[in-house]
């Protein structure tokens, strides 16, 4: 696709240390976002085997809820510190609300389906996403917020320090990217602790393979599923809240669709059921995204959809070369 001449161009271009540094940094920030948008999904999908199609809509709802908190209270917290603190409050609120919502959704809708093939859970969440999206649209129209375009009021609540580009060793470093990387690390650590410090991970993996057996061993499978689903949805919402500040994503109904497929890709590429895989896949996708974006913006490749194309090429490529994903278990669908 890329003619040879420009391949040389590209090489030369990326050999420039400042370009390389910038792309790597962008890549890290993007990776951080990819890990966050996939974190909730990987919990629910990787552990429970429920391919949550409502993931995207829930992200969008998280973005709007987070934005709502920020927009409502940002005026009273004007300084950098105040706003960042408020943002953490927003995250907590979003997490709490969506965890509760996720828990309720699991109990009422998903639970009756566990003794059916996993396909039905996919279908159900697919239906849920249709409903959530319409409801969200109705609410937004009612309050006269333009749903298909970025919610700028929410973006306006970004503190200066995050909006600005800072000069670090001669490199322009965007505050937002730094913030994203930091938050990515925090959330990754949080999920990691949840998985390793609680027995939910083990219970769920056992329960999703054979719920009856796990119950007979005294595991409250229902409760474990509710908690994990709730937490997964909560994290999904938190990711949305962060995206609301990033003009590349921003709070909008379309956010749902924008998030869904990349999240799938990251989870699948990483390998089902391994959070480590998700993190690595997020890094991979983020870096490739940054590189291909740079290829386009520096006009080495004149194809604007290059990053989008590459996400799916990564998916297909990984599945061809390592069918179980980067860190996935080896036997796929074995008995």
């Amino acid at each position, binding site marked *: 696709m890329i003619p040879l001449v420009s391949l040389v161009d590209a090489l030369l271009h990326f050999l420039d240390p400042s370009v390389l540094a910038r792309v790597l940094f962008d890549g890290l920030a993007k990776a951080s976002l990819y890990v966050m948008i996939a974190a909730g999904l990987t919990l629910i999908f990787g552990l429970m085997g429920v391919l949550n199609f409502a993931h995207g809509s829930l992200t969008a709802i998280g973005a709007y809820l987070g934005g709502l908190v920020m927009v409502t209270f940002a005026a009273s917290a004007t300084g950098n510190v105040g706003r960042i603190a408020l943002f953490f409050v927003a995250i907590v609120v979003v997490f709490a609300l969506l965890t509760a919502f996720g828990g309720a959704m699991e109990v009422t809708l998903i639970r009756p389906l566990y003794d059916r093939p996993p396909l039905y859970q996919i279908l159900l969440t697919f239906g849920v996403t249709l409903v959530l999206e319409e409801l969200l649209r109705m609410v937004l129209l009612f309050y006269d917020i*333009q749903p*298909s*375009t970025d919610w700028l009021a929410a*973006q306006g609540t970004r503190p200066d320090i995050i909006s600005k580009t800072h000069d670090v060793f001669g490199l322009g470093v965007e505050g937002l990217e730094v913030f994203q990387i930091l938050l990515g690390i925090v959330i990754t650590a949080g999920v990691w602790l949840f998985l390793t410090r609680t027995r939910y991970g083990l219970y769920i993996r056992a329960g999703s393979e054979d719920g009856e057996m796990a119950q007979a061993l005294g595991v409250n499978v229902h409760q474990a599923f509710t908690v994990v689903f709730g937490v997964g949805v909560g994290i999904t919402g938190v990711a949305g809240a962060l995206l609301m500040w990033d003009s*590349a994503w921003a709070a909008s109904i379309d956010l749902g669709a924008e998030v869904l497929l990349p999240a799938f890709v990251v989870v699948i590429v990483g390998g089902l059921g391994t959070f480590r895989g998700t993190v690595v896949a997020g890094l991979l996708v983020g870096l490739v995204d940054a590189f291909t*974006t740079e290829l386009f*913006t*520096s006009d080495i490749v004149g194809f*604007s959809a290059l990053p989008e194309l590459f996400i799916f090429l990564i998916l297909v490529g990984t599945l061809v070369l390592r069918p179980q994903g980067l860190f996935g278990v080896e036997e796929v669908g074995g008995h």
Partner: protein
Amino acid sequence: TSGGDGNGTETQNTATDGGTTNGGGQQTTTQADVSASGTVKVGIMQPMSGDLQYYGMQSIWGFLSGLAYRTDSDPLTDVQTGTRTIDDGDVTWELIFKDTQFSADVAQTAATDLVQQDGVDVLFGCSSSGSATRVAQTVVNTSGVDIPFIAGPAASADITANGETCSDQVFRANENTAMDARSGGTYAAQETDIQRVFLMGADYSFGRAVVNNYRTVLENNGIEIVGERFVPQGYSEFEGLFEAAVDANADAVVPGFTVATLPNFMTTAAGYDMRVFGGFATEITNAVVGQVLTNLLGEPLTAEKIRDSRIGPFTTRYHWNQYSNDINTAFVDMYTSAYGKVPDLFTSGTFTAASSLHQAVQASGSTEGIDIAGSMRGMTVADTPKGADAYTYQEYNNQARSEVTVAYPVPTSDEWADNWGASIMPGEPVARVGKDQTTIPADDPGMGCDL
């Protein structure tokens, strides 16, 4: 720059209604009446639900105002999908409204149904260029369909400049992207210090049209185009694109984006020492850009701050405050009291669409689509918000030419704050580009339409 009506020699005065050669008054309309009678069925397709319903609603409101002005009545309000009628002497106007949901597919279905089931005489509509193109290609330009389609406010120049869509039956009263570009580009080239321009556009019909037209016009005016990039709608990685523009030594950037992409663009643009010029858009976009500017420049927003941040000049196809003539005054009053807003970007064109339809029916004395089309060919429209006889359908492509103004954005004045929901609005025009200079000429290589 010239203003006003342009010169008469250039104008094709083959319109069937007489007496409009020299910008005469509105009295001509009744004189030329050939006593039409019957029902004119007009199929109106606009987005009437969803996020961009404001595009559709203002288009409809403009259209209804045009009809009301011509029939000397109050414009219809509370428009919904379905049929409404207006009595106009012996003529009954039956308006069938269909919601396109801003989707080309829905528009195609709507148009097909209107033609086939409702048997309309005229089609009018589509806010999205993709939808208008689709309707032209799959419905209007097919064998067996012989009714005219007045596209609008869909703005892609291609609709009337590209052999794939343009036809005897496809008209457009609304201003198009080429008109933005020709006027804005010429002004920028001649009246500002801009030398090297970088073009960016959304990668679909609208954005491509903007970029292509600016490229042609700017190059013709001796300005160097140092780069050109199309990005998907909603794109956000402008950092890199601006870096590229800097590397190319550009001193100005033209964005061909709509409200979906513009905020991201503006946010990044503010960080670069480069002029941004192009076209004004609707209230939605102004609100968005205003918000971005407020976020960036701090409150209160002032005209100086905006100018200092090298934003503008922008062309405007039409805004309520750009014209002072009796028709416009009446229009703004009528519109504001009926709909609670000032007439926005698209309304002059859709007003004119209605006005020209009415004029065509009266002139031809027929309510048949084929006759209406014949009558509209080359017509100079008498009653338009830009003044009397300010719009003329060009024979070679059925695009109406009209004047375009150039202005800088200013904070919205208190006078309009109630009826204009954005914090910025177009200021006093710094230039008016005459209607004969705005459209793509028949002999231009970019004109792919030769009727």
